[in-house]
């Protein structure tokens, strides 16, 4: 491999040519790219809706779009962002790309299933987009009954089917990763040698496999109810609308951990690399992923404190919700401790990591506000909740996603991104983000309800700030589109391991060959062996 850089080599990108070779590929790396392209489009679609929302909220009167249109905007923003962007974002792109490489496998356990899951995703997305173009959807992303089943005039069934179908894509991705981690690890790669990224994806997959089917059956019941008036969730027929909420949140709360856990895995990888240290408390960070996955199933009714559930149940769920916050706290503290006595550099991915830790801490701790029944009573269904979940989802997951994109871009494409532009956009994103969403905490506590098309005048100042922030945020997100594309042509060649990082994925060429490794590696070291890599003179054999 020493001569790798001089002559053009075949890699997964140029191994085969033509559209067909992409659309029929079973290479996990190519499928990851298919996902990357699709979800990027959906992110901008969702972002476009977000910009319209923010523009409407610039003034108290509902004067930009009609009330109905506004309702469709936030619904489609939520549905597109959650189901078409954030859920697949890290696991289906980076999980797909990296899991086999990090464990020294040639591919995922079921390559065809992997391709199928992308197609399923696209088919589901088509249903959702069909609902969007044929009049939109106005139920909110939560599809609450009986509004969704009886009263809404929009295209609920198509959208519900879309969500149902993309659910299967997520199930298959989870299944694939789960089986791969169990069955395809390279010789010597014991569980305690796995990168934390793998642990996080393992935990994520468990949630995908156990939770998503419940969403599926719930959606089926909603569709049946809407089509045939089954009465299961319809109070007029003797049904209980709250049962829908139970079933929906049984999936959708754990789903927020599908969004954050892989992002946490990303953070562990990057922070170790740029502080040249093994992640502090490896075992605890690994186990906290599992703990989050399991405890995450026990807390769903915290979305229903005031929905009419019993007081006692609300208190049980409140208590359990506090428990699930603890493993996240453990992670944050361990990441911070990792920096201690490191040898820290400030490449763009590392900036995103710093942003992540700060924003996730705020987002998570405001989750603790919401977990407190006595506070949630006041702030539920207000902008406080909106701010909370954008802090964890955008400040958390999207930030980590951006970090991951920069970190592994050289691996994916073989080219470096331009560092100074990247840093600029990271700073813009951080500032824009806080300006957008911090005012929403204040708005929420003042009582501005969410999903409001028009609002009382005294809320205007903060809303204007929020819209201003969103514009900065938009620039921050558009900039990378430009320089990433630019780097494909003009970027510096990266070489196999530009950051001198640990991890099997860095021990193969960039971009890797179709089967990742010339020879199946045999692992004899612990994860994050930066001591060996950086040790003067006795560096571990790092290819290239």
């Amino acid at each position, binding site marked *: 491999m020493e001569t790798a850089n001089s002559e053009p080599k075949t890699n997964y990108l140029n191994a085969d040519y033509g559209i067909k070779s992409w659309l029929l590929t079973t290479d996990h790396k190519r499928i990851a790219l298919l996902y990357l392209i699709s979800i990027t489009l959906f992110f901008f679609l969702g972002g476009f809706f977000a910009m319209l929302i923010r523009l409407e909220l610039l003034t108290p009167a509902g004067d930009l779009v009609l009330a109905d249109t506004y309702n469709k905007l936030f619904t489609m923003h939520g549905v597109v962002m959650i189901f078409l962007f954030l859920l697949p974002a890290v696991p289906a792109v980076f999980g797909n790309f990296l899991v086999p490489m990090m464990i020294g496998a040639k591919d995922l356990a079921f390559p065809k299933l992997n391709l199928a899951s992308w197609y399923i995703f696209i088919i589901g997305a088509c249903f959702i987009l069909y609902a969007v173009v044929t009049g939109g959807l106005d139920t909110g992303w939560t599809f609450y009954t009986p509004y969704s089943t009886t009263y809404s005039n929009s295209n609920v069934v198509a959208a519900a089917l879309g969500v149902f179908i993309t659910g299967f894509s997520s199930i298959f991705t989870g299944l694939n990763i789960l089986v791969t981690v169990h069955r395809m690890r390279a010789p010597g790669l014991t569980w305690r040698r796995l990168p934390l990224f793998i642990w996080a994806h393992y935990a994520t997959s468990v949630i995908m496999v*156990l939770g998503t*089917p419940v969403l599926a059956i*719930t959606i089926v019941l909603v569709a049946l109810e809407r089509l045939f008036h089954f009465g*299961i969730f319809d109070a007029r027929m003797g049904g209980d609308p709250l049962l829908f909420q139970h079933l929906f949140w049984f999936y959708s709360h754990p789903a927020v951990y599908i969004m954050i856990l892989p992002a946490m895995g990303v953070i562990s990888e990057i922070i170790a690399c740029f502080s040249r240290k093994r992640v502090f408390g490896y075992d605890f960070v690994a186990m906290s992923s599992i703990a989050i996955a399991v405890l995450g199933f026990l807390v769903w009714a915290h979305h229903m404190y005031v929905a009419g559930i019993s007081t006692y149940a609300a208190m049980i769920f409140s208590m359990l919700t506090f428990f699930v916050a603890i493993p996240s706290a453990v992670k944050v503290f361990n990441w911070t401790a990792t920096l201690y006595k490191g040898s820290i550099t400030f490449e763009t991915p590392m900036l995103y990591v710093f942003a992540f830790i700060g924003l996730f801490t705020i987002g998570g701790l405001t989750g603790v506000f919401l977990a407190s029944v006595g506070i949630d009573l006041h702030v539920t269904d207000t902008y406080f909740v909106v701010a909370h979940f954008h802090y964890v989802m955008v400040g958390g997951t999207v930030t980590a996603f951006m970090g991951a994109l920069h970190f592994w871009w050289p691996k994916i494409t073989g080219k470096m991104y331009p560092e100074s532009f990247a840093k600029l956009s990271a700073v813009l994103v951080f500032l824009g983000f806080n300006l957008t969403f911090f005012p929403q905490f204040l708005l929420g506590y003042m009582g501005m309800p969410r999903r409001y098309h028009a609002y009382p005048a005294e809320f205007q100042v903060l809303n204007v700030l929020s819209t201003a922030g969103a514009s900065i945020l938009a620039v921050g997100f558009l900039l990378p589109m430009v320089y990433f594309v630019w780097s494909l042509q003009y970027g510096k060649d990266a070489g196999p391991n530009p950051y001198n990082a640990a991890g099997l994925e860095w021990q193969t060429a960039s971009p890797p060959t179709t089967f990742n490794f010339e020879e199946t590696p045999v692992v004899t070291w612990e994860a994050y062996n930066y001591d060996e890599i950086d040790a003067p003179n006795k560096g571990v054999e790092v290819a290239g």
Partner: protein
Amino acid sequence: MPDSELAVHNLKHHFADLEQQKATSTFGMWIFLVTEIMFFGGAFATYLIYRLSYYNAWVAGSQTMEIELGAVNTVVLICSSLTMVMSVHFAKLGNRKLTAIFLLLTLLLGFGFLGIKAVEYHGHWVHHEVPGPNFHFEHQGNYDPRQVMIFFSLYFAMTGMHALHMVIGAGLLTWLLIANARGRFTPEYNSPVEMVGLYWHFVDLVWIYLFPLLYLISHHHNG
């Protein structure tokens, strides 16, 4: 094709050997079944919660079920599980002919089940027990007919979903029959048969719970 060549042909590129490949696909299938458990589980949970709230209506709804047909169908399904397990067994032994026979028997029994189910559905249709505008339930007990409609909604949702799985299973069996006829399976490579077997048994397993819950547990109130 000689066996050894066939084995190589069946080994996907990313596995070290057939053994790893088989273990992997078996585990994958079980994980898939786990998702199925959760899928049907959501419906069972709904059933349970409404049964607790609307006990009388549940009894009334359940008493309209034809126990005989349900019991016969249970037997049919159990027999199909036996024939399925036999076909797997013979596929492992490399006996193509017996594999085919038992697969065919399984398929026929599956159709038998669906046929009987169709008869039942027809009965419900005739008696206006299908939820919707035509629903009508002569009620005499201490309950509200709308609650019986919820019972039937769940009944149709659950048995319908189960029947859908049977139909998919029938498709898979047909595919196996063709592949078997083409000599795709050997004593070394037969996991498709085994996988479909697992799936088929799981569908049987769901019915094992549906039968008592929908037909039996309120039956004694008849007396």
